[in-house]
């Protein structure tokens, strides 16, 4: 019998590409509002806080506040974009529009659909990260062109990690309302703990220890030095931390989704 266990390893296949293209085609049609929502919002925050608060602070972490914040915003915006995509749009495709059901009747299987969701979430978030990076370049905030280009592969990794984490929630969710738990209990605390707006070393010790485990901290520890013109320290460790969060989440999300849909 081919009675595979739900939590068996993912089966990888390039057949996911048509599903990715489907999402891309939908996005192209709605690109205007999508770009505005995904990109304008973080940019306004970055500029507002950057200049407003920045004028009160001489320097943060050895840089102008707006530069410090811009590096955090790249990560924050990438995370948010991936999360929103796999949570709300992913749930809509899976549960509301039954797009996945239609796809599963073709030669594609659920593993292909999930891989498409993962890579699509990462693709959309790459666009968000890229937009903030473009503002950074436009304002000349980066200290080194070459190092700031290295932000791009990091953004892809951040997008994959947070897409995978979000897919766990999508797999468990009975309705859109459920996602508020994830934002309130996971995303928002992470934003406040991981050094988007201020250096983590300003927090009490126990919060610093907690923050060190969270994926957003590792993302920021990679991106911020690259913007500030330094080579990050402990690169392998940060990459491994993000990859571990991503892979474990993806494996869990796939297992939970198989359990939910393949019955």
């Amino acid at each position: 019998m081919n009675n595979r266990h739900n939590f068996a390893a993912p089966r990888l296949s390039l057949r996911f590409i048509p599903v990715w293209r489907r999402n891309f085609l939908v996005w192209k049609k709605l690109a205007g509002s999508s770009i505005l929502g995904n990109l304008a919002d973080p940019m306004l925050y970055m500029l507002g806080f950057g200049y407003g608060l920045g004028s009160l602070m001489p320097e943060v972490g050895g840089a102008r506040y707006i530069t410090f914040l811009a590096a955090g915003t790249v990560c924050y915006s990438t995370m948010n974009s991936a999360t929103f995509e796999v949570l709300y749009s992913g749930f809509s495709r899976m549960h509301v529009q039954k797009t996945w059901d239609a796809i599963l009747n073709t030669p594609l299987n659920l593993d292909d659909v999930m891989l498409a969701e993962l890579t699509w979430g990462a693709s959309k978030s790459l666009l968000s990260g890229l937009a903030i990076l473009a503002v950074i370049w436009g304002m000349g905030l980066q200290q080194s062109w070459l190092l700031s280009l290295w932000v791009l592969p990091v953004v892809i990794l951040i997008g994959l990690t947070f897409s995978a984490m979000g897919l766990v929630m999508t797999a468990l969710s009975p309705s859109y309302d459920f996602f508020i738990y994830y934002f309130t209990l996971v995303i928002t605390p992470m934003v406040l703990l991981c050094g988007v707006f201020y250096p983590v070393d300003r927090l009490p010790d126990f919060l610093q220890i907690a923050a060190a485990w969270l994926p957003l901290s590792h993302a920021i520890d990679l991106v911020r030095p690259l913007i500030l013109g330094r080579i990050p320290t402990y690169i392998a460790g940060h990459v491994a931390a993000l990859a571990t969060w991503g892979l474990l989440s993806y494996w869990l999300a796939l297992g939970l989704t198989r359990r939910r849909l393949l019955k």
Partner: protein
Amino acid sequence: MSLLRARNLRKRYGDTEVVRGLDLDIEAGECFGLIGPNGAGKTTTLKMLLGLIAPDDGSIEILGEPVPLRGREARLRIGVVPQMDNLDPDFSVRENLLVYGRYFGIADSVIRARIPGLLEFAGLTSKENARITTLSGGMKRRLTLARALVNDPELIVLDEPTTGLDPQARHVIWQGLRRLISQGKTILLTTHFMEEAERLCDRLVILDHGTAIASGSPRDMIAAEIEPSVMEIYGETVADWGAQHGHTLCERFEITGETLFCYTRDCDRVLDQLRAQHSLRYLHRPSNLEDVFLKFTGRELRD
């Protein structure tokens, strides 16, 4: 040649066995019906046949492929019309066909060449660029049927294809299905409209509580299981009429609410008797598949 062969299919959910040892054989080129009341196990059976869920026991072979092991390869040659419309609301009619064809790994140029024929088949040529939200229920169903043909499948599986459609739209779907049958396609359909099964299916099985309780061609089943004539008698006093005459005039009779179904070979005697009854209305008709279905599955509501 057997195009689909399933043996001893079993599927259990918790304490309930929804499919209990089902055997199916479908020949190439026939229209095969899987009929049964709600909860009989029809949709679960279809999901197992398509390789979407693994049976707990039993074996399936479709188009020479063992399922679910090679479900992907089997589905490459199958078209599916699901019970619920799941067209892409963000796309036009044309884009729905294009995107769906890509899932089969078909090149865009091949799909584009097929689209005019599919639109013609579905009667949607003028709606090529319409958004899905602007289509009527019947148009959506026709598009879903056309979408299932995008890979030029050998087997077309339809799960309650006309549920929720008005009679006009239903007839158009039937016409389309007959056209496919005449082209030599094999069709597997589930339905709880007996008229649909009787009109379209060469052979069918009646499924109840997860097992096949009867099978054969609709005509043979009616001939074998049911008296040729049915008298439907309506009225408040129908129970009294049944008690008085039912056993003598009918070979078999059933009462549901204020209706009595009298099954008989000699309808003249029943008609003579009824002409004298002014409080009763009646309808004389030949027996049909619904009578067979109700004989096997009973008249109680299934929810």
